[in-house]
């Protein structure tokens, strides 16, 4: 095995307003031992009046899709994900977790989801920004990839809400479904694209990200053993 030191910032994209539904990176070089994704920003739950998110309610965090498996993407037919998300609410020492996403509990889902935020009211830029990191090991091989996520929660705007309605942390893992017969073989393609979105309201209307929300991908390390080709046709 050959190991080389090879660390790059591969790409970064940032919103310039609050009207983007998602941030997307495609054509990511997968010739790395690890891809690290970093999202920082916020979900504009207020939606500028376009969504029906009610004030003073818990809301889901960002939506996640990758490997071109989204509507209109090159692997749209493989858009069947598995999702496991965890959160720690500040009013309890317990960690909570759920399978699937809010709209698809314990099932193959059309997207993944990480995070949980208490939406107070308005566009509370001051306290709703967060940082989220994801790690994908061996992004270029022909096996099913998963991304492990860790991030911080947020504290709602007012002090009294801060104690009971914040999360100290989120964690989760996301993957394209490789076991369900409905999954296409294309699910094994390289981890060369990712889309982080603001999710949807209860009526299915896409929400938007706040201004200066950013998605970055780092490539970290290289080893000759990682690259095993991506020809899945013979297996």
């Amino acid at each position, binding site marked *: 095995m050959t190991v080389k030191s090879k*660390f*790059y*910032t*591969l*790409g*970064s*994209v*940032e919103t*310039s307003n609050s*009207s*983007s*539904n*998602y941030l*997307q*990176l*495609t*054509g*990511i070089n997968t010739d790395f031992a690890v891809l690290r994704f*970093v999202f*920082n920003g916020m979900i504009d739950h207020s939606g500028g009046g376009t969504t029906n998110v009610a004030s003073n309610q818990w809301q889901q965090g960002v939506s996640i899709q990758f490997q071109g498996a*989204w*509507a*209109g993407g090159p692997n749209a037919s493989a*858009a069947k994900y598995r999702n496991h998300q965890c959160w*720690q609410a*500040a009013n309890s*020492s317990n960690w909570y977790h759920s399978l699937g996403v809010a709209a698809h509990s314990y099932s193959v889902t*059309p*997207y993944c989801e990480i995070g949980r935020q208490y939406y107070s009211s308005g566009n509370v830029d*001051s*306290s709703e*920004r*967060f*940082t*989220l*990191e994801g790690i994908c090991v061996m992004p270029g091989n022909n096996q099913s990839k998963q991304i492990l996520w*860790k*991030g*911080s*929660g*947020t*504290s709602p705007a007012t*002090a009294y809400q*801060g104690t009971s309605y*914040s*999360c*100290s*942390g989120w964690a989760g893992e996301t993957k394209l479904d490789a076991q369900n017969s409905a999954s296409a073989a294309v699910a094994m393609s390289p981890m060369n694209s990712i889309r982080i*979105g603001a999710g*949807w309201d*209860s*009526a*299915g209307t*896409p929400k*938007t990200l706040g201004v*200066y929300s*950013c998605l*970055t991908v*780092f*490539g970290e390390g290289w080893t000759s053993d990682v690259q095993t080709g991506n020809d899945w046709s013979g297996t």
Partner: protein
Amino acid sequence: MAGVTTAARMSLGPIAATEVLNPKGIGEIITYGSGNGQYRISGLNTVAMQKYHDMEIWFKSSNQSTWTTSWGFYFESAGQTSMSGQMNSSYYYAGYSSGASHGTNNGGNYYNYPSGYSSYGHMFKLYISNVGSSSNIKSWHGYGGYTNGSATSYVTCQQGGGSLTSSNPIDSIYISNGYGNGSTSYQGFTVFGRRPK
């Protein structure tokens, strides 16, 4: 979402931001050093750091001949002006036999527990976004762990994060370390620039 088809749910609106794939170096070491009790990582808003949007810091945090205690930090703008009043954060830790704790600090320092004892390992990794921005809110996320040999009751993991409601660049970070009798060999840090501009 009852009654909403997957296709409808996937019908997203326009993208205002486009991808930028322009590989650059992952970053560089901006500064590193050691601390002694209470210490400050200063001079962060430097020419070197201004090449990056974000910052990553690896801490080791222990006390000499003192059992575990809490530690924490707050951000400062130029002139070592505290911005702790603009910090909103949450924390959590869990121990092997010492239970778990959680909480929030709104308008105050970021709280972390525990720091380590002597040379037993304790590390904490911190990622801070928009460090040098003069127009944007900052947010951070960190996690770490601690063990100390046979004293299993102090084995813990920890994590947390928050936001800094200030458009002033972060120029220094003040670290308060428990009882403050740490030897410099037990407290250290390395600062990396991340997300090149």
